[in-house]
């Protein structure tokens, strides 16, 4: 018998550390880290730097764990869609069981460690977020309703609330406003992506709005959600986490976002095909900056407060 029963066939399954890291959806994790950090720093309670760093790290690990569970469950449709076909499981670099084990292991580790480092409420909220993304969104909503993105968006909206709860140990209106900002932003962001990814979701049989209600209806949904988002985003400027800097940024960005949504609404498929969905792609890119800038100025308002500048 050869050494430790190793056979040549296992070579293709020898994943590298980077493959396991890719299972954690690093780009989603970076957004989670950023919004959770803003929630933590915008809260009116100072947290010890080590506790803040460790807590945000465990929130990031929890988010990564839910990403691994999502990739384990969605491996079949990931293989069909062009955008996701190179992910570790469909490309054969990681076995589905490994992703499940990693996801479960990191879920328990992150929740337990957040309970020890911060508080039980923050840990409970992280556990609920992982459950919501992996079970409610990935296993249930994603394949069963065109409202998948709308309700599933809640999973991505929890991190700033967790950040706030890490600092204060309780909920507040400001934390839920940050939640609402991401919750309302998610649908137009993903529907714009669904418009220019064309057949990807059709091929995978995912009931995205573009598949079930058509592209025209998706364009109408984008403008409706963008209007609601703009009201919410500008309105937040008058609360405790807002201030002159936030309000100015929100007015400018929401005007641009509304302009983009209006443009998308007025277009038909012929003109979109003619310029290869340039308007939809531009709106999608703007949506990334939109969220980053809103949370960036909430952070700036909080950072300026000790010097007598931030807030109202």
């Amino acid at each position, binding site marked *: 018998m050869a*050494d*430790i029963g*190793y056979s040549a066939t296992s070579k293709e399954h*020898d994943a*590298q*550390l980077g493959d396991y890291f890719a299972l954690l959806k690093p780009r989603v994790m970076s957004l989670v880290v950023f919004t959770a950090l803003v929630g933590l720093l915008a809260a009116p309670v100072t947290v010890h730097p080590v506790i803040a760093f460790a807590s945000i*790290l465990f929130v990031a690990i929890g988010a990564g764990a839910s990403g691994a569970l999502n990739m384990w469950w969605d491996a079949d449709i990931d293989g069909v869609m062009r955008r996701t076909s190179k992910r570790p499981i469909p490309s054969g670099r990681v076995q589905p069981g490994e992703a499940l084990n990693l996801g479960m292991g990191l879920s328990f580790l992150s929740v337990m460690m957040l309970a020890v*480092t911060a508080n039980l409420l923050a840990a409970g909220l992280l556990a609920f977020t992982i459950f919501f993304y992996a079970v409610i969104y990935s296993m249930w909503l994603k394949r069963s309703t065109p409202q998948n993105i709308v309700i599933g968006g809640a999973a991505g909206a929890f991190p700033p609330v967790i950040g706030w709860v890490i600092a204060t140990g309780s909920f507040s209106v400001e934390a839920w406003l940050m939640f609402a900002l991401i919750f309302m932003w998610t649908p137009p962001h993903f529907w714009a992506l669904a418009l220019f990814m064309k057949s990807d979701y059709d091929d995978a049989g995912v009931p995205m709005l573009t598949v079930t209600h058509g592209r025209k209806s998706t364009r109408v949904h984008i403008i409706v959600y963008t209007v609601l988002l703009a009201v919410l985003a500008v309105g937040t400027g008058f609360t405790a986490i807002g201030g002159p800097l936030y309000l100015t940024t929100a007015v400018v960005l929401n005007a641009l976002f509304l302009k983009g949504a209006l443009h998308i609404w007025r277009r038909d498929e012929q003109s979109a095909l003619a310029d290869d969905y340039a308007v939809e792609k531009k709106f999608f890119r703007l949506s990334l900056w939109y969220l980053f800038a809103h949370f960036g100025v909430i952070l700036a308002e909080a950072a300026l407060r000790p010097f007598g500048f931030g807030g109202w």
Partner: protein
Amino acid sequence: MAIRAEHEIHTRRKGRNVGVGLMLAAFVVLVLAITFAKVTSDDFEVPSTSELVN
């Protein structure tokens, strides 16, 4: 047959093993730092001996 000290699998997995090792070491350091931060904070109270006995 004796297990050879070095096999191709060892070389190939070296990077992965070193990475896991470093992460575990970082985790130990992090837990230590959290402990220091907790016990040196103002609101930390050492449990009294009577509480521990009861």
